[in-house]
Protein backbone atom coordinates (compact mmCIF):
# COMPACT_ATOMS: atom_id res chain seq x y z
CA UNK A 1 0.00 0.00 0.00
CA UNK A 2 1.42 3.38 -0.91
CA UNK A 3 1.61 6.23 1.56
CA UNK A 4 -0.97 8.21 -0.40
CA UNK A 5 -3.69 5.66 0.31
CA UNK A 6 -3.38 6.36 4.01
CA UNK A 7 -5.54 8.91 5.77
CA UNK A 8 -6.01 9.90 9.37
CA UNK A 9 -9.28 7.98 9.28
CA UNK A 10 -7.87 4.70 7.94
CA UNK A 11 -4.32 4.69 9.32
CA UNK A 12 -4.37 7.01 12.32
CA UNK A 13 -0.98 5.89 13.66
CA UNK A 14 1.09 5.98 10.48
CA UNK A 15 -0.67 8.27 7.99
CA UNK A 16 1.64 11.15 8.94
CA UNK A 17 4.79 9.08 8.44
CA UNK A 18 6.66 9.65 5.18
CA UNK A 19 8.50 6.75 3.49
CA UNK A 20 11.85 8.27 4.54
CA UNK A 21 10.57 8.35 8.14
CA UNK A 22 11.59 11.98 8.56
CA UNK A 23 9.39 13.33 11.38
CA UNK A 24 7.02 16.26 10.93
CA UNK A 25 7.66 19.34 13.01
CA UNK A 26 4.86 20.94 15.01
CA UNK A 27 3.44 22.92 12.08
CA UNK A 28 3.61 19.90 9.78
CA UNK A 29 1.96 17.65 12.32
CA UNK A 30 -0.81 20.19 12.90
CA UNK A 31 -1.37 20.49 9.15
CA UNK A 32 -2.36 16.79 9.05
CA UNK A 33 -4.73 17.10 12.00
CA UNK A 34 -2.23 16.85 14.83
CA UNK A 35 -3.19 18.27 18.24
CA UNK A 36 -6.90 18.25 17.25
CA UNK A 37 -7.58 15.76 20.03
CA UNK A 38 -5.74 17.83 22.62
CA UNK A 39 -7.45 21.08 21.60
CA UNK A 40 -10.83 19.36 21.81
CA UNK A 41 -10.07 18.11 25.30
CA UNK A 42 -8.82 21.47 26.56
CA UNK A 43 -11.87 23.22 25.05
CA UNK A 44 -13.99 21.50 27.65
CA UNK A 45 -14.15 17.70 27.81
CA UNK A 46 -13.98 16.57 31.44
CA UNK A 47 -11.27 14.02 32.36
CA UNK A 48 -13.97 11.49 33.24
CA UNK A 49 -15.42 11.85 29.74
CA UNK A 50 -12.00 11.33 28.13
CA UNK A 51 -11.69 8.14 30.18
CA UNK A 52 -15.18 7.06 29.15
CA UNK A 53 -14.43 7.57 25.45
CA UNK A 54 -11.23 5.52 25.64
CA UNK A 55 -13.15 2.78 27.47
CA UNK A 56 -15.93 2.84 24.85
CA UNK A 57 -13.33 2.63 22.08
CA UNK A 58 -12.24 -0.87 23.23
CA UNK A 59 -8.60 0.16 23.16
CA UNK A 60 -6.49 -2.60 24.72
CA UNK A 61 -2.91 -2.14 25.90
CA UNK A 62 -0.48 -2.58 23.02
CA UNK A 63 2.53 -3.42 25.19
CA UNK A 64 1.65 -7.10 25.22
CA UNK A 65 -0.75 -7.79 28.06
CA UNK A 66 -3.80 -6.36 26.28
CA UNK A 67 -5.45 -4.91 29.38
CA UNK A 68 -8.28 -2.48 28.46
CA UNK A 69 -6.77 0.99 28.69
CA UNK A 70 -9.89 2.78 29.91
CA UNK A 71 -10.32 0.23 32.69
CA UNK A 72 -6.67 0.62 33.70
CA UNK A 73 -7.18 4.37 33.99
CA UNK A 74 -10.41 3.97 35.99
CA UNK A 75 -8.47 2.73 39.06
CA UNK A 76 -6.74 6.10 39.44
CA UNK A 77 -8.21 8.19 42.28
CA UNK A 78 -9.97 11.22 40.81
CA UNK A 79 -11.75 14.26 42.17
CA UNK A 80 -11.01 16.68 44.96
CA UNK A 81 -9.87 14.03 47.43
CA UNK A 82 -7.32 12.58 44.99
CA UNK A 83 -3.62 13.07 45.76
CA UNK A 84 -2.32 16.32 44.24
CA UNK A 85 0.53 14.58 42.40
CA UNK A 86 -0.17 11.84 39.87
CA UNK A 87 1.96 10.56 37.01
CA UNK A 88 1.52 9.27 33.50
CA UNK A 89 4.45 7.14 32.35
CA UNK A 90 5.01 5.88 28.83
CA UNK A 91 6.69 2.49 28.60
CA UNK A 92 9.02 3.14 25.66
CA UNK A 93 11.50 0.48 26.73
CA UNK A 94 10.85 -1.60 23.60
CA UNK A 95 13.10 -4.62 24.12
CA UNK A 96 10.90 -7.66 23.53
CA UNK A 97 12.95 -9.70 21.05
CA UNK A 98 11.37 -9.50 17.61
CA UNK A 99 9.62 -6.17 18.26
CA UNK A 100 10.29 -2.98 16.30
CA UNK A 101 7.06 -0.97 16.24
CA UNK A 102 7.47 1.67 18.94
CA UNK A 103 10.80 2.70 17.40
CA UNK A 104 8.90 3.67 14.22
CA UNK A 105 6.26 5.66 16.12
CA UNK A 106 8.84 7.58 18.16
CA UNK A 107 11.41 8.24 15.49
CA UNK A 108 8.95 9.14 12.74
CA UNK A 109 5.93 10.61 14.57
CA UNK A 110 7.22 12.04 17.86
CA UNK A 111 4.49 14.69 18.14
CA UNK A 112 1.82 11.99 18.09
CA UNK A 113 3.26 10.43 21.25
CA UNK A 114 3.71 13.84 22.87
CA UNK A 115 0.06 14.70 22.16
CA UNK A 116 -0.99 11.29 23.44
CA UNK A 117 0.94 11.81 26.66
CA UNK A 118 -0.71 15.17 27.26
CA UNK A 119 -4.24 13.90 26.55
CA UNK A 120 -3.69 10.74 28.65
CA UNK A 121 -2.19 12.85 31.43
CA UNK A 122 -5.26 15.07 31.33
CA UNK A 123 -7.57 12.05 31.52
CA UNK A 124 -6.09 10.88 34.82
CA UNK A 125 -5.28 14.34 36.17
CA UNK A 126 -1.52 13.79 36.06
CA UNK A 127 0.84 16.60 36.97
CA UNK A 128 3.85 15.22 35.13
CA UNK A 129 4.56 12.70 32.41
CA UNK A 130 7.73 10.68 31.83
CA UNK A 131 8.59 8.81 28.65
CA UNK A 132 10.80 5.92 29.80
CA UNK A 133 12.86 5.35 26.68
CA UNK A 134 15.46 2.65 26.23
CA UNK A 135 18.92 4.16 26.05
CA UNK A 136 19.76 2.66 22.68
CA UNK A 137 16.99 4.60 20.90
CA UNK A 138 19.20 7.63 20.35
CA UNK A 139 17.29 9.03 17.38
CA UNK A 140 13.93 8.62 19.14
CA UNK A 141 15.29 10.53 22.14
CA UNK A 142 16.44 13.37 19.91
CA UNK A 143 13.13 13.58 18.04
CA UNK A 144 10.99 13.34 21.17
CA UNK A 145 12.99 16.02 22.99
CA UNK A 146 12.65 18.34 19.99
CA UNK A 147 8.90 17.68 19.82
CA UNK A 148 8.48 18.35 23.56
CA UNK A 149 10.38 21.63 23.23
CA UNK A 150 8.11 22.69 20.34
CA UNK A 151 4.96 21.66 22.20
CA UNK A 152 6.10 23.60 25.26
CA UNK A 153 6.78 26.66 23.09
CA UNK A 154 3.30 26.37 21.56
CA UNK A 155 1.67 26.25 24.99
CA UNK A 156 0.61 22.59 24.83
CA UNK A 157 2.84 21.80 27.83
CA UNK A 158 3.07 24.06 30.86
CA UNK A 159 0.75 25.87 33.24
CA UNK A 160 -3.01 26.47 32.95
CA UNK A 161 -3.21 24.70 29.60
CA UNK A 162 -5.88 26.18 27.35
CA UNK A 163 -7.22 28.10 30.35
CA UNK A 164 -8.29 24.81 31.93
CA UNK A 165 -6.36 25.44 35.14
CA UNK A 166 -4.48 22.18 34.56
CA UNK A 167 -0.67 22.15 34.68
CA UNK A 168 1.36 19.46 32.94
CA UNK A 169 5.05 18.88 32.38
CA UNK A 170 6.64 16.17 30.23
CA UNK A 171 10.14 14.66 30.25
CA UNK A 172 12.11 12.01 28.40
CA UNK A 173 13.89 9.62 30.77
CA UNK A 174 16.42 7.37 29.08
CA UNK A 175 17.38 3.98 30.44
CA UNK A 176 20.68 2.11 30.33
CA UNK A 177 19.66 -1.35 29.22
CA UNK A 178 18.00 -4.40 30.86
CA UNK A 179 14.86 -6.01 29.44
CA UNK A 180 13.26 -6.20 32.88
CA UNK A 181 12.74 -2.41 32.77
CA UNK A 182 9.75 -3.17 30.52
CA UNK A 183 7.93 -4.78 33.48
CA UNK A 184 5.86 -1.85 34.70
CA UNK A 185 6.81 -1.92 38.38
CA UNK A 186 10.49 -2.61 37.58
CA UNK A 187 10.26 0.36 35.23
CA UNK A 188 9.04 2.55 38.08
CA UNK A 189 11.95 1.44 40.29
CA UNK A 190 14.34 2.19 37.46
CA UNK A 191 12.77 5.61 36.89
CA UNK A 192 13.27 6.36 40.59
CA UNK A 193 16.98 5.60 40.17
CA UNK A 194 16.97 2.13 41.66
CA UNK A 195 17.80 -1.34 40.39
CA UNK A 196 15.01 -2.55 38.13
CA UNK A 197 13.56 -5.21 40.41
CA UNK A 198 9.80 -5.63 40.11
CA UNK A 199 7.57 -4.55 43.01
CA UNK A 200 4.95 -6.62 44.80
CA UNK A 201 1.39 -6.07 43.57
CA UNK A 202 -0.87 -4.94 45.19
CA UNK A 203 -0.66 -2.03 45.58
CA UNK A 204 -1.05 -1.46 41.86
CA UNK A 205 0.70 1.55 40.31
CA UNK A 206 -2.64 3.30 39.68
CA UNK A 207 -2.94 3.65 43.46
CA UNK A 208 0.71 3.77 44.57
CA UNK A 209 3.24 3.96 41.74
CA UNK A 210 6.02 6.43 41.05
CA UNK A 211 7.23 7.87 44.39
CA UNK A 212 4.16 6.26 45.94
CA UNK A 213 1.77 8.42 43.88
CA UNK A 214 -1.02 7.22 41.60
CA UNK A 215 0.61 6.33 38.29
CA UNK A 216 -0.50 4.91 34.96
CA UNK A 217 2.05 3.11 32.78
CA UNK A 218 1.01 2.67 29.14
CA UNK A 219 2.87 1.46 26.05
CA UNK A 220 3.87 3.86 23.25
CA UNK A 221 1.40 2.50 20.69
CA UNK A 222 -1.43 2.57 23.24
CA UNK A 223 -0.84 6.23 24.05
CA UNK A 224 -0.47 7.18 20.37
CA UNK A 225 -4.04 5.95 19.78
CA UNK A 226 -5.59 8.17 22.45
CA UNK A 227 -5.66 11.56 20.67
CA UNK A 228 -7.24 9.95 17.60
CA UNK A 229 -10.03 8.45 19.73
CA UNK A 230 -10.79 11.93 21.07
CA UNK A 231 -10.53 13.58 17.65
CA UNK A 232 -12.75 11.10 15.77
CA UNK A 233 -14.78 9.33 18.44
CA UNK A 234 -15.07 5.92 20.05
CA UNK A 235 -17.48 4.57 17.39
CA UNK A 236 -15.03 5.39 14.61
CA UNK A 237 -12.20 3.72 16.55
CA UNK A 238 -14.18 0.52 17.15
CA UNK A 239 -15.01 0.45 13.44
CA UNK A 240 -11.32 0.50 12.46
CA UNK A 241 -11.13 -3.23 13.13
CA UNK A 242 -13.58 -3.68 10.20
CA UNK A 243 -15.38 -6.48 11.99
CA UNK A 244 -12.21 -8.56 12.21
CA UNK A 245 -12.13 -8.28 16.00
CA UNK A 246 -14.13 -7.17 19.00
CA UNK A 247 -11.14 -4.99 19.92
CA UNK A 248 -11.03 -1.47 18.58
CA UNK A 249 -8.49 0.24 16.37
CA UNK A 250 -5.67 -0.58 14.08
CA UNK A 251 -2.55 -2.43 15.18
CA UNK A 252 1.05 -2.22 14.14
CA UNK A 253 1.88 -5.69 12.88
CA UNK A 254 5.14 -6.90 11.48
CA UNK A 255 7.32 -9.87 10.76
CA UNK A 256 11.01 -10.72 10.93
CA UNK A 257 13.02 -13.82 10.12
CA UNK A 258 13.55 -15.47 6.75
CA UNK A 259 10.82 -13.59 4.86
CA UNK A 260 11.34 -11.62 1.63
CA UNK A 261 10.51 -8.14 2.91
CA UNK A 262 10.52 -7.94 6.71
CA UNK A 263 8.72 -4.87 7.99
CA UNK A 264 5.94 -3.30 10.01
CA UNK A 265 2.45 -2.30 8.81
CA UNK A 266 -0.63 -0.65 10.31
CA UNK A 267 -3.63 -2.93 9.75
CA UNK A 268 -7.09 -3.40 11.27
CA UNK A 269 -6.73 -5.24 14.56
CA UNK A 270 -7.71 -8.86 13.99
CA UNK A 271 -5.83 -9.16 10.71
CA UNK A 272 -4.26 -12.58 10.28
CA UNK A 273 -0.73 -13.89 10.26
CA UNK A 274 -1.28 -14.90 6.66
CA UNK A 275 -2.12 -11.32 5.62
CA UNK A 276 1.02 -10.05 7.39
CA UNK A 277 3.19 -12.72 5.77
CA UNK A 278 1.76 -11.76 2.38
CA UNK A 279 2.69 -8.11 2.93
CA UNK A 280 6.20 -9.36 3.64
CA UNK A 281 6.23 -11.19 0.31
CA UNK A 282 6.12 -14.62 1.93
CA UNK A 283 9.05 -16.78 2.94
CA UNK A 284 12.40 -16.35 1.20
CA UNK A 285 13.11 -18.84 -1.58
CA UNK A 286 14.17 -22.18 -0.21
CA UNK A 287 12.62 -21.66 3.20
CA UNK A 288 9.36 -23.05 4.54
CA UNK A 289 7.44 -21.76 7.55
CA UNK A 290 7.81 -24.20 10.42
CA UNK A 291 6.41 -22.21 13.34
CA UNK A 292 5.99 -18.60 14.46
CA UNK A 293 6.00 -16.48 17.56
CA UNK A 294 3.01 -14.14 17.25
CA UNK A 295 4.32 -11.30 19.37
CA UNK A 296 7.80 -11.62 20.76
CA UNK A 297 10.10 -14.02 22.57
CA UNK A 298 7.71 -14.46 25.48
CA UNK A 299 4.81 -15.81 23.42
CA UNK A 300 4.02 -19.47 22.65
CA UNK A 301 4.90 -20.81 19.22
CA UNK A 302 2.06 -21.27 16.78
CA UNK A 303 2.06 -23.42 13.62
CA UNK A 304 1.33 -22.69 9.94
CA UNK A 305 -2.21 -24.01 10.59
CA UNK A 306 -2.78 -20.99 12.86
CA UNK A 307 -2.07 -18.42 10.14
CA UNK A 308 -5.77 -17.67 9.65
CA UNK A 309 -6.46 -16.93 13.32
CA UNK A 310 -7.30 -13.22 13.82
CA UNK A 311 -4.31 -11.54 15.47
CA UNK A 312 -6.15 -10.11 18.46
CA UNK A 313 -5.82 -10.78 22.17
CA UNK A 314 -8.77 -13.15 22.51
CA UNK A 315 -8.31 -15.21 19.34
CA UNK A 316 -4.56 -15.75 19.67
CA UNK A 317 -5.20 -16.63 23.33
CA UNK A 318 -7.71 -19.30 22.29
CA UNK A 319 -5.16 -20.69 19.83
CA UNK A 320 -2.82 -21.28 22.78
CA UNK A 321 -0.52 -18.29 22.61
CA UNK A 322 -0.57 -14.55 23.32
CA UNK A 323 -0.76 -11.66 20.87
CA UNK A 324 2.06 -10.00 22.79
CA UNK A 325 3.41 -7.10 20.77
CA UNK A 326 1.89 -8.39 17.50
CA UNK A 327 5.25 -8.52 15.73
CA UNK A 328 5.73 -12.04 14.35
CA UNK A 329 9.03 -13.90 14.29
CA UNK A 330 9.06 -16.78 11.84
CA UNK A 331 10.98 -19.98 12.46
CA UNK A 332 11.95 -21.52 9.12
CA UNK A 333 12.51 -25.18 8.34
CA UNK A 334 16.29 -24.74 7.94
CA UNK A 335 16.74 -23.26 11.42
CA UNK A 336 17.38 -25.47 14.43
CA UNK A 337 14.41 -25.57 16.80
CA UNK A 338 16.58 -26.49 19.78
CA UNK A 339 19.15 -23.88 18.77
CA UNK A 340 16.41 -21.26 18.65
CA UNK A 341 15.18 -22.30 22.10
CA UNK A 342 18.72 -22.14 23.49
CA UNK A 343 18.96 -18.61 22.05
CA UNK A 344 15.61 -17.60 23.58
CA UNK A 345 16.35 -19.06 27.02
CA UNK A 346 19.88 -17.61 27.19
CA UNK A 347 18.24 -14.24 26.61
CA UNK A 348 15.77 -14.75 29.46
CA UNK A 349 18.44 -16.16 31.80
CA UNK A 350 20.74 -13.22 31.11
CA UNK A 351 17.99 -10.64 31.54
CA UNK A 352 16.59 -12.07 34.79
CA UNK A 353 16.95 -9.42 37.46
CA UNK A 354 17.90 -12.13 39.97
CA UNK A 355 15.30 -11.11 42.53
CA UNK A 356 13.44 -14.43 42.92
CA UNK A 357 14.92 -17.91 42.99
CA UNK A 358 12.80 -19.79 40.43
CA UNK A 359 13.75 -17.26 37.76
CA UNK A 360 17.37 -16.67 38.78
CA UNK A 361 18.25 -20.37 39.10
CA UNK A 362 15.59 -22.02 36.95
CA UNK A 363 16.38 -20.19 33.73
CA UNK A 364 20.11 -21.07 33.60
CA UNK A 365 19.15 -24.67 34.42
CA UNK A 366 16.72 -24.63 31.50
CA UNK A 367 19.51 -23.35 29.23
CA UNK A 368 21.85 -26.14 30.40
CA UNK A 369 19.34 -28.88 29.62
CA UNK A 370 18.50 -27.39 26.22
CA UNK A 371 22.19 -27.03 25.32
CA UNK A 372 22.74 -30.70 26.18
CA UNK A 373 19.77 -31.73 24.03
CA UNK A 374 20.96 -29.52 21.18
CA UNK A 375 24.26 -31.39 20.91
CA UNK A 376 22.76 -34.84 21.45
CA UNK A 377 24.00 -35.11 25.03
CA UNK A 378 20.60 -35.07 26.73
CA UNK A 379 19.78 -37.60 29.43
CA UNK A 380 16.63 -39.59 30.07
CA UNK A 381 14.26 -37.45 32.10
CA UNK A 382 15.44 -34.16 30.57
CA UNK A 383 12.21 -33.54 28.70
CA UNK A 384 10.18 -34.31 31.80
CA UNK A 385 12.43 -31.93 33.74
CA UNK A 386 11.80 -29.18 31.18
CA UNK A 387 8.07 -29.84 31.46
CA UNK A 388 8.34 -29.52 35.24
CA UNK A 389 10.10 -26.17 34.70
CA UNK A 390 7.18 -24.87 32.67
CA UNK A 391 5.07 -25.41 35.78
CA UNK A 392 7.62 -24.48 38.47
CA UNK A 393 8.54 -21.20 36.78
CA UNK A 394 4.91 -20.30 36.04
CA UNK A 395 2.70 -17.46 37.28
CA UNK A 396 2.24 -17.46 41.02
CA UNK A 397 5.59 -19.10 41.68
CA UNK A 398 7.70 -16.20 40.47
CA UNK A 399 7.72 -12.53 41.45
CA UNK A 400 6.82 -11.21 38.00
CA UNK A 401 5.97 -12.43 34.49
CA UNK A 402 9.59 -12.68 33.28
CA UNK A 403 10.14 -16.42 33.89
CA UNK A 404 6.59 -17.40 32.86
CA UNK A 405 7.25 -15.50 29.62
CA UNK A 406 10.40 -17.57 29.14
CA UNK A 407 8.37 -20.75 29.56
CA UNK A 408 5.86 -19.90 26.83
CA UNK A 409 8.03 -20.67 23.76
CA UNK A 410 9.46 -23.70 25.61
CA UNK A 411 6.15 -25.33 26.55
CA UNK A 412 4.72 -24.85 23.07
CA UNK A 413 7.88 -26.21 21.42
CA UNK A 414 7.66 -29.39 23.52
CA UNK A 415 3.96 -29.67 22.67
CA UNK A 416 4.47 -29.34 18.89
CA UNK A 417 7.95 -30.76 18.32
CA UNK A 418 8.55 -33.39 21.01
CA UNK A 419 10.40 -35.79 18.65
CA UNK A 420 13.11 -33.14 18.16
CA UNK A 421 13.67 -33.06 21.90
CA UNK A 422 13.72 -36.88 22.05
CA UNK A 423 16.34 -36.96 19.30
CA UNK A 424 18.62 -34.93 21.57
CA UNK A 425 18.83 -37.68 24.17
CA UNK A 426 22.09 -39.65 24.06
CA UNK A 427 21.70 -42.71 21.86
CA UNK A 428 22.69 -45.26 24.50
CA UNK A 429 20.35 -43.70 27.01
CA UNK A 430 17.22 -43.61 24.89
CA UNK A 431 17.09 -47.43 25.03
CA UNK A 432 17.16 -47.28 28.81
CA UNK A 433 14.40 -44.71 28.67
CA UNK A 434 12.28 -46.85 26.39
CA UNK A 435 12.66 -49.75 28.81
Amino acid at each position, binding site marked *: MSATDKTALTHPLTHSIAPDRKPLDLAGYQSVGGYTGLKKVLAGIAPADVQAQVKDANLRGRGGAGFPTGVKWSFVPMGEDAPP*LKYIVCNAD*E*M*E*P*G*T*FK*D*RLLMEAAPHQLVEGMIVSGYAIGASTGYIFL*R*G*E*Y*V*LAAKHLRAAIAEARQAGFIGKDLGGSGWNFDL*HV*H*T*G*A*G*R*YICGEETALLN*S*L*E*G*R*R*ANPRAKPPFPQVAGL*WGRPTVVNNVETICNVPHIIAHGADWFRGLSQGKSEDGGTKLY*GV*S*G*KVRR*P*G*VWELPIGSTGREILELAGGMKDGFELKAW*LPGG*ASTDFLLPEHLDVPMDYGSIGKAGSRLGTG*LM*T*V*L*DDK*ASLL*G*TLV*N*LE*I*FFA*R*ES*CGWCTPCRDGLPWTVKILQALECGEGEPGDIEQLEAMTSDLWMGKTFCAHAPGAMEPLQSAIKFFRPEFEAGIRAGDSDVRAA
Partner: protein
Amino acid sequence: MSTADANIVKLADLPKPQDFRLSDTERKDILHEISQYPEARAASIEALKIAQRRLGWVPDAAIAEVAPLLGISTAELDGVATFYNLIYRQPVGRHVITLCDSVSCYLTGYEQTRDALIETLGIQLGQTTPDGRFTLLPICCLGACDHGPVLMIGEDTHLDVTPDTVPAMLEAYE
Protein backbone atom coordinates in the same frame (compact mmCIF):
# COMPACT_ATOMS: atom_id res chain seq x y z
CA MET B 1 52.65 10.12 13.05
CA SER B 2 51.37 6.58 13.19
CA THR B 3 47.98 5.73 14.60
CA ALA B 4 49.66 4.13 17.59
CA ASP B 5 51.45 7.40 18.47
CA ALA B 6 48.19 9.31 18.16
CA ASN B 7 46.62 6.91 20.63
CA ILE B 8 49.41 7.42 23.17
CA VAL B 9 48.91 11.19 23.06
CA LYS B 10 45.17 10.79 23.51
CA LEU B 11 45.55 8.45 26.49
CA ALA B 12 48.02 10.79 28.16
CA ASP B 13 45.49 13.62 27.96
CA LEU B 14 42.98 11.66 29.97
CA PRO B 15 42.88 11.95 33.73
CA LYS B 16 43.95 8.92 35.74
CA PRO B 17 40.80 7.04 36.80
CA GLN B 18 41.64 7.47 40.48
CA ASP B 19 41.95 11.25 40.00
CA PHE B 20 38.55 11.55 38.33
CA ARG B 21 36.79 14.77 39.33
CA LEU B 22 33.59 16.07 37.78
CA SER B 23 34.14 19.11 35.59
CA ASP B 24 31.95 22.17 36.08
CA THR B 25 30.03 21.29 32.92
CA GLU B 26 29.45 17.71 34.02
CA ARG B 27 28.30 18.86 37.44
CA LYS B 28 25.96 21.42 35.85
CA ASP B 29 24.53 18.80 33.49
CA ILE B 30 23.89 16.41 36.38
CA LEU B 31 22.15 19.13 38.41
CA HIS B 32 19.98 19.93 35.38
CA GLU B 33 18.91 16.28 35.14
CA ILE B 34 18.15 16.24 38.88
CA SER B 35 15.88 19.28 38.44
CA GLN B 36 13.48 17.18 36.31
CA TYR B 37 12.52 14.96 39.26
CA PRO B 38 11.01 15.41 42.71
CA GLU B 39 13.79 13.17 44.10
CA ALA B 40 17.44 13.59 43.13
CA ARG B 41 18.26 9.89 42.92
CA ALA B 42 15.90 9.49 39.94
CA ALA B 43 18.66 11.11 37.89
CA SER B 44 21.08 8.28 38.81
CA ILE B 45 21.28 6.75 35.35
CA GLU B 46 21.58 10.08 33.53
CA ALA B 47 24.22 11.18 36.04
CA LEU B 48 26.20 7.97 35.48
CA LYS B 49 25.96 8.51 31.72
CA ILE B 50 27.32 12.03 32.15
CA ALA B 51 30.14 10.74 34.36
CA GLN B 52 30.88 8.12 31.73
CA ARG B 53 31.24 10.60 28.84
CA ARG B 54 34.92 11.47 29.33
CA LEU B 55 36.57 8.09 29.95
CA GLY B 56 33.92 5.91 28.36
CA TRP B 57 33.50 4.11 31.69
CA VAL B 58 32.81 4.98 35.33
CA PRO B 59 35.75 4.65 37.75
CA ASP B 60 35.29 4.36 41.54
CA ALA B 61 36.26 8.00 41.98
CA ALA B 62 33.36 9.06 39.74
CA ILE B 63 30.88 7.03 41.80
CA ALA B 64 32.21 8.82 44.89
CA GLU B 65 31.81 12.21 43.18
CA VAL B 66 28.29 11.62 41.85
CA ALA B 67 26.61 9.84 44.78
CA PRO B 68 26.49 12.90 47.11
CA LEU B 69 24.80 14.96 44.36
CA LEU B 70 22.05 12.33 44.24
CA GLY B 71 21.78 12.12 48.01
CA ILE B 72 22.56 8.42 48.14
CA SER B 73 25.54 6.37 49.32
CA THR B 74 28.30 5.24 46.99
CA ALA B 75 27.20 1.64 47.64
CA GLU B 76 23.65 2.42 46.50
CA LEU B 77 24.88 4.17 43.36
CA ASP B 78 27.26 1.33 42.61
CA GLY B 79 24.31 -1.04 42.96
CA VAL B 80 22.57 0.93 40.23
CA ALA B 81 25.71 1.27 38.08
CA THR B 82 26.39 -2.47 38.11
CA PHE B 83 22.77 -3.40 37.34
CA TYR B 84 22.49 -1.66 33.97
CA ASN B 85 24.48 -2.97 31.05
CA LEU B 86 25.15 0.37 29.31
CA ILE B 87 27.02 1.69 32.35
CA TYR B 88 30.57 0.35 32.28
CA ARG B 89 32.46 -0.06 35.55
CA GLN B 90 35.71 -1.11 33.93
CA PRO B 91 37.69 0.36 31.05
CA VAL B 92 36.27 -0.09 27.55
CA GLY B 93 37.63 0.79 24.13
CA ARG B 94 37.01 4.11 22.39
CA HIS B 95 34.17 2.47 20.50
CA VAL B 96 31.87 -0.07 22.13
CA ILE B 97 30.29 -2.49 19.68
CA THR B 98 27.02 -3.93 20.98
CA LEU B 99 25.90 -6.85 18.87
CA CYS B 100 22.28 -8.01 19.04
CA ASP B 101 22.12 -11.74 19.79
CA SER B 102 18.34 -12.07 20.22
CA VAL B 103 16.04 -14.38 18.32
CA SER B 104 15.40 -12.48 15.05
CA CYS B 105 19.10 -11.76 14.58
CA TYR B 106 19.83 -15.39 15.45
CA LEU B 107 17.46 -16.49 12.70
CA THR B 108 19.01 -14.06 10.19
CA GLY B 109 22.57 -15.13 10.94
CA TYR B 110 24.11 -12.92 13.64
CA GLU B 111 26.51 -15.76 14.50
CA GLN B 112 28.33 -15.31 11.19
CA THR B 113 28.57 -11.56 11.85
CA ARG B 114 29.83 -12.26 15.36
CA ASP B 115 32.49 -14.64 14.06
CA ALA B 116 33.62 -12.08 11.46
CA LEU B 117 33.96 -9.45 14.20
CA ILE B 118 35.88 -11.83 16.44
CA GLU B 119 38.23 -12.71 13.59
CA THR B 120 38.73 -9.13 12.35
CA LEU B 121 39.26 -7.65 15.80
CA GLY B 122 41.15 -10.60 17.26
CA ILE B 123 39.12 -10.50 20.48
CA GLN B 124 36.26 -12.45 22.02
CA LEU B 125 32.93 -11.07 23.24
CA GLY B 126 33.55 -9.08 26.42
CA GLN B 127 37.08 -8.08 25.43
CA THR B 128 38.82 -4.90 24.24
CA THR B 129 41.38 -4.71 21.44
CA PRO B 130 44.97 -4.16 22.70
CA ASP B 131 45.07 -0.72 21.03
CA GLY B 132 41.99 0.35 23.00
CA ARG B 133 39.98 0.97 19.83
CA PHE B 134 37.06 -1.45 20.19
CA THR B 135 35.20 -3.35 22.90
CA LEU B 136 32.86 -6.10 21.70
CA LEU B 137 29.74 -6.89 23.75
CA PRO B 138 26.51 -8.81 23.20
CA ILE B 139 23.22 -7.00 23.73
CA CYS B 140 19.57 -7.97 23.69
CA CYS B 141 17.17 -7.08 20.88
CA LEU B 142 17.89 -3.61 19.43
CA GLY B 143 14.40 -3.22 17.95
CA ALA B 144 15.38 -3.25 14.28
CA CYS B 145 14.53 -6.90 13.58
CA ASP B 146 13.44 -6.17 10.00
CA HIS B 147 17.11 -5.43 9.31
CA GLY B 148 18.94 -8.19 11.18
CA PRO B 149 21.73 -8.77 11.95
CA VAL B 150 21.90 -5.47 13.81
CA LEU B 151 24.59 -3.88 15.96
CA MET B 152 25.49 -0.52 17.41
CA ILE B 153 28.88 1.15 17.52
CA GLY B 154 28.65 3.84 20.15
CA GLU B 155 25.43 5.66 19.31
CA ASP B 156 25.31 4.57 15.66
CA THR B 157 22.98 1.76 14.63
CA HIS B 158 24.15 -0.49 11.79
CA LEU B 159 21.59 -2.58 9.92
CA ASP B 160 21.91 -5.77 7.85
CA VAL B 161 25.49 -6.35 8.98
CA THR B 162 27.01 -9.37 7.26
CA PRO B 163 30.59 -10.70 7.38
CA ASP B 164 31.21 -8.92 4.05
CA THR B 165 30.24 -5.49 5.37
CA VAL B 166 32.14 -5.77 8.67
CA PRO B 167 35.60 -4.49 7.57
CA ALA B 168 34.34 -1.31 5.82
CA MET B 169 31.99 -0.56 8.71
CA LEU B 170 34.82 -0.76 11.26
CA GLU B 171 37.14 1.48 9.21
CA ALA B 172 34.94 4.51 9.94
CA TYR B 173 35.87 4.30 13.64
CA GLU B 174 39.37 5.52 14.51
